[in-house]
């Protein structure tokens, strides 16, 4: 399936793309557009104004996608959602000290490469975060 989002991806879009490919559509193909009108007809748009998979009711797009695809029961994904929310919106709804660090890493990445490059770097980062919080859930404490 084709998925489309705005070019110049940052934390929320990078995390959404990872989430989509890993949990929603393993064959996902991403299109980055500069204008909402350029979204291909056969693509599902996300993290864009006026679409279902965007910011709604104070949630970021990552949280919206979790809800839309019934992924909210996974505690590791929920934790990543809190971090992405704080990195993206910084409204102090969650306690996520990881957020400001991840936020600057993503900002820096967007300065040195294109969206494909950012995703190539961030996909393993989110895989690692997912594994970390999965183990943390199993252990009931921070893993070593």
């Amino acid at each position, binding site marked *: 399936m084709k998925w489309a989002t705005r070019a110049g991806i940052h934390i929320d879009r990078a995390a959404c793309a990872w989430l989509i490919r890993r949990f929603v559509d393993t064959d996902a193909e991403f299109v980055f557009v500069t204008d909402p009108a350029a979204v291909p007809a056969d693509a599902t748009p996300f993290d864009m104004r006026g679409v279902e998979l965007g910011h709604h009711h104070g949630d970021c797009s990552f949280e919206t996608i979790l809800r839309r695809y019934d992924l909210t029961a996974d505690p590791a994904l929920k934790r990543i959602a809190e971090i992405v929310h704080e990195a993206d919106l910084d*409204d102090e709804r969650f306690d996520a000290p990881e957020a400001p660090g991840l936020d600057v890493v993503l900002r820096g990445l967007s300065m040195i490469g294109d969206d494909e490059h950012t995703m190539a770097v961030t996909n393993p980062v989110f895989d690692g975060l997912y594994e970390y919080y999965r183990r943390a859930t199993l252990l009931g404490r921070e893993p070593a």
Partner: protein
Amino acid sequence: MTDDEQPPPAPPVSPGQWVLLSYRLPREPSTPRITVWRKLKRLGVAQISDGLIALPADARTREQLEWIAEEVTDFGGTATLWIAQPAALAEERKLAQAMADARSAEYEQVRAQAEQARHQPDDERQRTLRRLRAELRRINRRDYFPPPQRRTAEAAVAALHPANTTPASEEHPA
């Protein structure tokens, strides 16, 4: 001179780009109006007139205002986002100065609180340090035209840490 040595920024010769949000929300219920206004305040926007606010345009400010526009629409209001340029440099300076003044008042408050906390007992001072650091971070994020008070406030807060208040010889006796 190598490529990565940048000359000091020259004073702007023409006004820069600003992102403007023009919005309207129903009078009642008042909760959405308050929610939206709090979010705008948190972003440190300049209010140009009722229902018209501005921020210097960059990828981030534009996105933040796009999402607020979306929220206004979700609340049943109307919102339009504009990229605009003040017609005169003086207009832009006035806008920037008002924003810098608002931030400098916030930094001053933090500095005053930090100075008052200097003689608090250790654990209380640590708590104040954490609280004021969080407050500084919030102010920094909405500070687009940093006033000199920023450095002063940061120094006053940093001085609350024991390693920055106690001389090294007392902290680690030989």
